């Protein structure tokens, strides 16, 4: 995108402010994005679950931890739309609160991955040489380790809990980002504007933060959103195996409880179908956004 001058209305052409340049870029991007039906479906799904999570205390009819004696293992009814579990807790309320945990863990873990991956990629690609070799060896090492077994090992050593879960998922998901950022940095640092900046005496830190990072960012954005999908699914898997956050309800934990109560064999579909569909739809929402972003931000695909 080469918008260097705009008509400022008085008939003269001038270079627009940075703010204006970004606004133009964003408007263009937004038009392309809203054209994509996948992107819009994805955004609708994500907003739906964000609303569900934010307003959970209002939307949920009961406290998800409240046990109701005399209403144990109930079938769906008007007062309990998805029935109750073996301790008499309302499954529908657990589902509503589940959106909070899944979103929280998914987004924060993906943010950690994005941060580490970008840092590794930028440094590795920009400085090259020995730093590049060492950092990429570390990246290779983590790429080759299978994620779930490693997560299980770490959880069993350091215990579960919200912070640990976010850290574990985040610390194991940055390798893809690091690779992409590195290769982008390699190509951007060859461009003329970086050379120009160097020739007027700009420092490495300045070049990285104000020339390379802004150019790398759009491309890693789609990748970062896919990181949210992976984190949501990883959390669900760990919680399903019983290593989730104790005390708070995630969809993975609802499924863990359903498994313990033999809901499948008892035919209690209301206990395991809705949480699974929720995980699927939320993850699908982010996947669709990521896919559309890739199409919009990756010009190679758009030109075809």
């Amino acid at each position, binding site marked *: 995108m080469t918008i260097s001058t705009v008509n400022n209305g008085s008939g003269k052409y001038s270079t627009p402010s940075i703010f204006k340049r970004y606004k133009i870029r964003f408007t263009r991007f937004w038009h392309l994005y809203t054209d994509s039906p996948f992107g819009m479906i994805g955004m609708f799904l994500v907003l739906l679950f964000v609303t569900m999570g934010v307003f959970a205390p209002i939307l949920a009819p009961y406290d998800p931890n409240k046990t109701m004696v005399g209403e144990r293992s109930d079938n769906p009814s008007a007062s309990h739309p998805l029935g109750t579990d073996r301790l008499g807790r309302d499954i529908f309320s657990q589902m509503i609160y589940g959106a909070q945990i899944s979103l929280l863990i998914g987004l924060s873990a993906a943010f950690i991955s994005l941060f580490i991956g970008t840092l590794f990629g930028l440094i590795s690609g920009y400085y090259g040489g020995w730093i590049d070799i060492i950092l990429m060896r570390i990246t290779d090492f983590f790429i080759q*380790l*299978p994620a779930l*077994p490693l997560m299980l*090992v770490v959880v069993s050593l350091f215990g579960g809990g919200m912070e640990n879960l976010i850290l574990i998922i985040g610390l194991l998901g940055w390798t893809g980002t690091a690779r992409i950022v590195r290769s982008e940095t390699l190509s951007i640092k060859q461009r003329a504007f970086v050379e120009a900046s160097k020739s007027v005496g700009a420092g490495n830190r300045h070049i990285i933060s104000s020339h390379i990072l802004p150019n790398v960012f759009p491309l890693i954005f789609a990748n970062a959103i896919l990181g949210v999908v992976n984190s949501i699914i990883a959390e669900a898997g760990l919680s399903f195996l019983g*290593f989730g956050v104790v005390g708070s309800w995630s969809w993975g934990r609802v*499924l863990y409880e359903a498994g313990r109560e033999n809901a499948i064999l008892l035919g209690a579909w209301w206990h395991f179908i809705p949480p699974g569909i929720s*995980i699927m739809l939320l993850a699908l929402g982010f996947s669709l956004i990521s896919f559309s972003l890739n199409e919009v931000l990756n010009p190679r695909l758009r030109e075809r």
Partner: protein
Amino acid sequence: MSLKGYISRRAFDSGFLLILTVIFNFVLFRVMPGNPALAVLGRTGQVRPEFRQVLQERYGTNLPIFDQFIIYIQRLLEGDLGVSFYYYPTEVSELIFGHRLLNTILLMGISILLSFILAIIFGTIAASKFKSKTDLVSIFVTLTSYSTPVFWLGMLIIFYFFGQFHLIPLSGSPRIEDPKYADIFAWAIDYCYHLIGPVTTLTISFVGAWFLIARDQMLGIFLEDYITTARAKGLKERRVLFTHARKNAMLPMISVLAMAMTYLVSGATLTETVFSWDGLGLLTFDAVTYSDYPLLQGLFLLVAAVAIVSSFIADIIYAYLDPRIRY
């Protein structure tokens, strides 16, 4: 760089990674909270005092950490992975390299092969109809399958195909030693019957992950000149697709397959748990549940080693097929 030079450089890298993995594996199990000397013995109170004594002699947990590392390496070189806590006094190597390894390799091997073929076929078809309805629908379907937690898919398959339609058995993996089998064929048939559920689950999930990669590769290749030439020559579209284009798209898929090789031994913990498939994935789950650290350490080392070796082999094949890689 010659192919030989490239191989020796990659061999050096892989050896380095392998050493790093061994060190990582040693350190990881000693940095856990609590008394580091007791770490290898599991959390205090979970191990009976009598074999704490035995283990102390064996691992030298009362010695300085560097000496412990030397002992660990010595044992490892002798092929000794230690004794399981939970299955005491069974050796870890005995637990890993037995029927469980075979179960996992069969389950994962069949699923990976099936998914690989399906992903390439679907990817080719979708790419050839770029931006058509077929393309969009298949993207939507595979994104959905990518977003579906694999264990939940397994639960659904059990619910419908076992619970409602009675098409598959509930769970488990038949053992050949079981006296109820008259001969090896009776066992083999029952074994395959039990494989249907987990293989279906894993295949759907793998295809979801690989379809887009295959499609992307094919799209890139359709822009190449030799495809235009092939079409201009008047070759049938199917021939262009499956002989000219597919061969070249296979190249990057090799690295996908190399990643999948690791699953051959890591197993699919979630799927194996849902279907009670007695493989290494289920063993990992048990090891974590019972804090069986020596077992966990052994499993982890095996998986990491296979990951490193398979990526080394993939790189060599890749460099052999595409000389540009070597530079």
